[in-house]
């Protein structure tokens, strides 16, 4: 799962961006030419400071999203209906944690330590996908997450896997391969409720109504308000605009929702036959910014659970920190 289109940036860094573009014009030109040719940038290569900073933020926040995203779903492992659903959910949650590890590794190649990233998550300096600040109230919420949030994340991740930074692309290729199972099991559980008893159907419709706004928020604010997207797209850090990704998601998944006789809580939602693009009521972006800055229903719980885990696990990590030297035989 889980990388959204939105990369949280600290407002005071905007100035730096402009200045650094003129740092080393020759190296910058060679760097941009490589990217334009479709070459991958690797950890040891020269890169503009701003490229490094933006990528670190992007990958780190993606990693945090995987780790935090496992919490609302993990809640439901003990209560998943039936053995098969429970097995699938355990496997999925384990995958998400694995994805977090892969992404932290990719971010580490840019110079930031794992510990520094975790500290920035715990202090609230570094963000994660906003959708995980909402609770999964019923089993139907879990199926909506597993189907639609994963689907949205795949749209974003498939795009990003064609980006310019080698380690991130390689991590994403592995992640996308595993996500295909997540999406399928989510869709399967979603269909089961949609085609089930009236009570099951109602439960799913309620969950869909609750999640529609967070899903519309998922790809980030509209293009007209996004800052310095252009350079990030030229550098292939960002592979598609927020609106384009949202449109691609709607195009693929709204029909799959409607075909099951479900509705979406936006009367304006429709595909414009002339432009081929989806039209919708703008979701409440003030709510989005309020939640990302700590004001959502679960922000506090998510971070407190993470802090608890770090605290409680510390003695184990420390006990293992200075192991006795052991003799290792050659591997081949």
């Amino acid at each position, binding site marked *: 799962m889980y990388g959204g289109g939105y990369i949280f940036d600290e407002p005071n860094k905007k100035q730096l961006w402009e200045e650094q573009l003129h740092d080393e014009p020759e190296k910058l030109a060679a760097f941009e030419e490589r990217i334009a040719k479709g070459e991958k940038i*690797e950890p*040891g*290569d020269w890169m503009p400071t701003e490229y490094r900073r933006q990528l670190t933020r992007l990958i780190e926040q993606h990693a945090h999203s995987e780790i935090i995203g496992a919490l609302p779903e993990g*809640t439901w492992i*003990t209560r998943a209906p039936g053995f098969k659903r429970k097995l699938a959910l355990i496997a999925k949650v*384990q995958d998400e944690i*694995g994805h977090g*590890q*892969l992404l932290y*590794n990719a971010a*580490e190649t840019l110079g930031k*330590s*794992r*510990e*520094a990233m*975790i*500290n920035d998550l*715990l*202090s609230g300096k570094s963000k994660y996908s906003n959708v995980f600040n909402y*609770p*999964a*109230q019923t089993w139907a919420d879990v199926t909506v997450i597993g189907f639609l949030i994963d689907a949205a994340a795949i749209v974003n991740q498939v795009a990003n896997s064609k980006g310019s930074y080698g380690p991130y692309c*390689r*991590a994403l290729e*592995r992640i996308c391969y*595993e996500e295909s199972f997540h999406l399928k099991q989510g869709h399967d559980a979603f269909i089961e409720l949609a085609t089930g008893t009236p009570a099951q159907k109602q439960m799913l419709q309620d969950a869909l109504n609750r999640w529609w706004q967070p899903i519309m928020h998922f790809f980030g604010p509209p293009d007209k308000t996004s800052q310095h997207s252009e350079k990030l797209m030229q550098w292939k850090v960002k592979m598609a605009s927020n609106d384009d990704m949202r449109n691609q998601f709607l195009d693929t998944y709204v029909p799959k929702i409607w075909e099951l006789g479900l509705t979406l809580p936006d009367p304006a939602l429709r595909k414009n036959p002339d432009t081929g693009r989806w039209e919708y009521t703008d979701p409440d972006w003030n709510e989005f910014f309020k939640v990302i800055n700590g004001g959502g*229903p*679960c922000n*506090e*719980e998510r971070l*407190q*659970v993470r*802090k*608890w885990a*770090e*605290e409680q696990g*510390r003695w184990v*990590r*420390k006990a*293992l*920190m200075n*192991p006795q030297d*052991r003799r*290792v035989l050659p*591997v081949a």
Partner: protein
Amino acid sequence: MLNESLDPRVNRLKLGAPGEVIKVEEGENWNVYEVFHQEKRGAHHEHVGCVHAPDPQLALVFAKEQFARRKKCVNLWVVKSADILAFDVEDEDMFANNLEKTYRDASGFKVMEKINKFKQTK
């Protein structure tokens, strides 16, 4: 806590106060090990990524969870990243060489021509 959690397990935890500062120390997440994955016996081990671990034994355990829980795998290697010696990226040009390599290629040696020529002169 502000809200009662929907997760009974979370409610049973003694969570800290909101805004409490928890800091992970540098080094607490241990060392980095590179992981090499073997898909079938006799195949090359291929580099697939890395894991954080305090020692090689645990690196193997984590590598198994991380890189062998899906696709076929018969063996894994782990190597401390610090122990890998590699050329500098800037030195890539040292691998640039003459494209004329027939002298080290089977096709560069035309023995039949010589044998036939020898047979004709006999």
